[in-house]
């Protein structure tokens, strides 16, 4: 016999569920509040506008301009998405619509393996392959001076890293479209391409946006691989062949060091807060589009 009757057991079990839910729901809030309190010291002495848009970063003389880091992060992320998006979309359409089923059965584990490689390994690969490729071949070919460590190198490594994630989601989305919908447009005399363009892409649109948003968030927060190839120079990049610096790299490179400089600690926390807010913003925008396109 049980100690409690079944109604009591139901109450106890659901209490645990509520507690777990509360934990999951409140953790981001706590994180946000913690970061805010920690960076409050910086925010008290400088205006938010100055912090975000000032270009000069000299912590030792009390100048904290985050603009180069923000620009660096945005460039790297956007460029990575520009590479990732078409590659993933075309691959996903090709494997789900044009090939036989066994191709997908082979590809799925391969993609999973790629997704499981630690980012440090990607970073190393970037240093050994991508950086020399850019400095020795791509740069001279396009007649630009570059040392290889650059926004482009970071974007490239980053896109290789997020492609497996985005691709996996996209494949699932295209697989979930009922074959009857395809039959419906085929029976109207649509060609394969017309079916994809007018029906499948439209049906999958909310999912495609979600997949890209997920990739974007991952790319924006990725630290290690980017830090290894981006160059880590605090300067506004003029082209994609220039080195840059990203927000996550700033935190990872400096936290725990030079904390004797006044407000440095607070400034790094502010960088983390910025990261959090930007990710939140991406999520909201993504959500808006998903709701907008999901009505069909």
């Amino acid at each position, binding site marked *: 016999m049980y100690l409690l009757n079944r109604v009591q057991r139901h109450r106890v079990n659901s209490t645990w569920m509520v507690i777990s839910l509360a934990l999951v729901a409140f953790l981001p809030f706590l994180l946000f509040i913690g970061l805010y309190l920690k960076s409050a010291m910086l925010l008290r002495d400088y205006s938010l506008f100055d912090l975000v848009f000032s270009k000069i970063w000299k912590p030792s003389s009390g100048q904290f301009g985050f603009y180069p880091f923000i620009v660096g992060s945005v460039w790297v992320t956007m460029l990575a998405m520009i590479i990732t998006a078409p590659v993933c979309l075309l691959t996903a359409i090709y494997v789900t619509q044009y090939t036989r089923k066994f191709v997908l059965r082979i590809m799925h584990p391969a993609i999973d393996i790629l997704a499981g490689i630690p980012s440090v390994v990607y970073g190393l690969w970037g240093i050994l392959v991508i950086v020399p490729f850019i400095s020795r071949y791509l740069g001279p070919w396009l007649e630009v001076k570059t040392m290889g460590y650059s926004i482009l190198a970071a974007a490239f490594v980053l896109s290789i890293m997020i492609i497996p994630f985005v691709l996996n989601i996209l494949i699932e989305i295209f697989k979930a479209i009922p074959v009857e919908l395809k*039959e419906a447009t*085929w*029976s*109207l*005399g649509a060609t394969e391409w017309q079916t994809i363009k*007018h029906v499948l892409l439209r049906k999958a649109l909310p999912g495609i946006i979600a997949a890209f948003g997920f990739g974007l968030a991952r790319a924006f927060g990725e630290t290690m691989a980017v830090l290894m190839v981006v160059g880590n120079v605090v300067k506004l990049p003029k082209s994609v062949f220039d080195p840059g610096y990203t927000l996550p790299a700033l935190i990872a490179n400096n936290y725990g060091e030079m904390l004797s400089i006044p407000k440095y600690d607070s400034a790094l926390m502010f960088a983390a807060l910025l990261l959090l807010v930007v990710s939140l913003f991406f999520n909201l925008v993504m959500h808006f589009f998903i709701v907008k396109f999901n009505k*069909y």
Partner: protein
Amino acid sequence: MEHETKIEIRDLNVFAGKNQILKNINIDIPKNKITVILGPSGCGKTTLLKCMNRLTDLYPELKVSGRIMIDNNNILAAKEDIYKLRQQMGLLSQRPYPLPMTIYNNIAYALKLRGIKKRREIHKLVLHYLQQANLWDEVRDRMREPAVRLSIGQQQRLCLARGLAVNPEIILADEPTSALDPISSQFIEETFSKLKNDYTIVLVTHILRQAKRIANHVVFMYLGEVIEQGSVEEVFGNPKMEKTKLYLGGTFN
């Protein structure tokens, strides 16, 4: 036979791997009549229907052999422009699958595939086909709404209108009322009875009463074979084969 044959199926065999789904099918489908294909679930009715507009191409695992002659043209041998060929037939599936667009664009899409580009003509024809499918009065104020907001019965009529919009000569319907409520089913049946003057209709169903109500010609299938075919009076009134008698008597399903 006094009436013209529209579709002539000869020695049709369909294999899925080693599994034979259709065995030596020979059917004559009369023009401008409702032909009902009757039989228990899993007897190959749907596959037969899909052969007629080459939707079997979507499934590379299916091997199709034999001949399906439509107006003396073997569609199974057709190499070029299968897309044009499919437009000779409108398809109505078991559940409605409206395209992910507005009600208006569901029809307009089909019209554009047919090659109609002028906006004014599209406007006129959208209205025409919605009226033909008995839907216009219910959607006249909702043309810009997503099609999925319609009820299932309305969606099915929208799919019918969409199928008619490619200007087919044949309508293929695969248990089109199985997901619908009685009133929507009645709507579809009435529409079919009206449409048969201009279209050759092939209706797959397992509802005996529906077959009796609207069929002119009946084909009874069992386990991938045609057991009996003939006019509705012949098959229902005086079945020759033992299996047909049993099925019509409700002994097996």
